[in-house]
């Protein structure tokens, strides 16, 4: 399988992140530490396979690793090693 066939959109990580966070983060914007580009997580490149224990999110412009998420033995490890910041909509006031 060619490399690009493994590539998904960051939007596809929404289910995994939804297990951890109450806020929707795929439309949150983040800044890449590698090249400084700013964009929605959902627009970045995601490398993930249903049979793999983890997912890797990379910058769509420079392919630097932004985030790695690994599920194993009842734990989830989230390494946010390539983002300067992540800007998430604050919905706290809107809980019904």
């Amino acid at each position, binding site marked *: 399988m060619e490399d690009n066939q493994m590539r*998904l959109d960051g*939007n596809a990580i929404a*289910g995994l992140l939804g*297990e951890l966070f*109450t806020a*929707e983060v*795929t439309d949150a914007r983040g800044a890449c530490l590698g090249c400084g580009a700013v964009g929605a997580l*959902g627009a970045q490149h995601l490398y993930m*396979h249903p049979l793999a224990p983890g997912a890797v999110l990379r910058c769509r412009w420079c392919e630097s690793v932004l985030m790695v998420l690994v599920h194993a033995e009842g734990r989830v490890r989230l390494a946010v090693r390539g983002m300067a910041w992540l800007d998430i909509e604050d919905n706290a006031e809107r809980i019904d």
Partner: protein
Amino acid sequence: MARAALQRRLTWRLAEVTQLVAETPRVRSLVLEVPGWPGHRAGQHMDVRLTAEDGYAAERSYSIASAPDAGEQLTLTVERLDDGEVSPYLTEELRVGDQLELRGPIGGYFVWDLEMGGPLMLIAGGSGICPLMAMLRRRAGASSKVPARLLYSSRSREDIIYREELHRRGAAGSGLEVIHTLTRVQPPDWTGRAGRIDQAMLNDVAWSPTDRPLMYVCGPTTLVEHVADALVNLGHDPERVKTERFGPTGG
């Protein structure tokens, strides 16, 4: 809008199959009743989980094809992948009355809400039509006047998903223009386009960059990447081109 409903972590819930619709020889739609469904936005997806008797579980993501205005009723449209683990069961074994584990809605990026406006340029390959169909159904259900175009690539006429509904929705005066292209077989009376979507076809069919369309591209990874690159080459703002690649979903 189901914003408030997003204020919770994702949890699995049980849905019941209420109707099955054969769309093409390889594709069928599952109409599900989901008690407590919090609502969704057009373009969002959901996860389906199948668990075998020995406890082995397989999960797959599917786009929601129905508009957000059907209460606790949802439609998923599933294409059978011959070497898949989940799609053969969903397309061949599942019966009305069966229960299915699912969670959602998921994703806040590849979505279209009425207030986002348009014009809308939707581009699909194969079952990539599903989340775009949710947008078109949303648009029609709300009698939205947002101008919309759909460029839809299928292998053959028999493989066009929602063919009748698209024909109906694209009627004169609807503000929706549906353009089909067939990549493998074109029948003798075919009046649509032929061949894969390329930059020349997009240049003919898509709104001009000066119209500032909102673009959604969904389908196999290769198609999505070619289309997204071509749109940017044509002068469209990459920020307005949203993509959803199927990738190696494993079916």
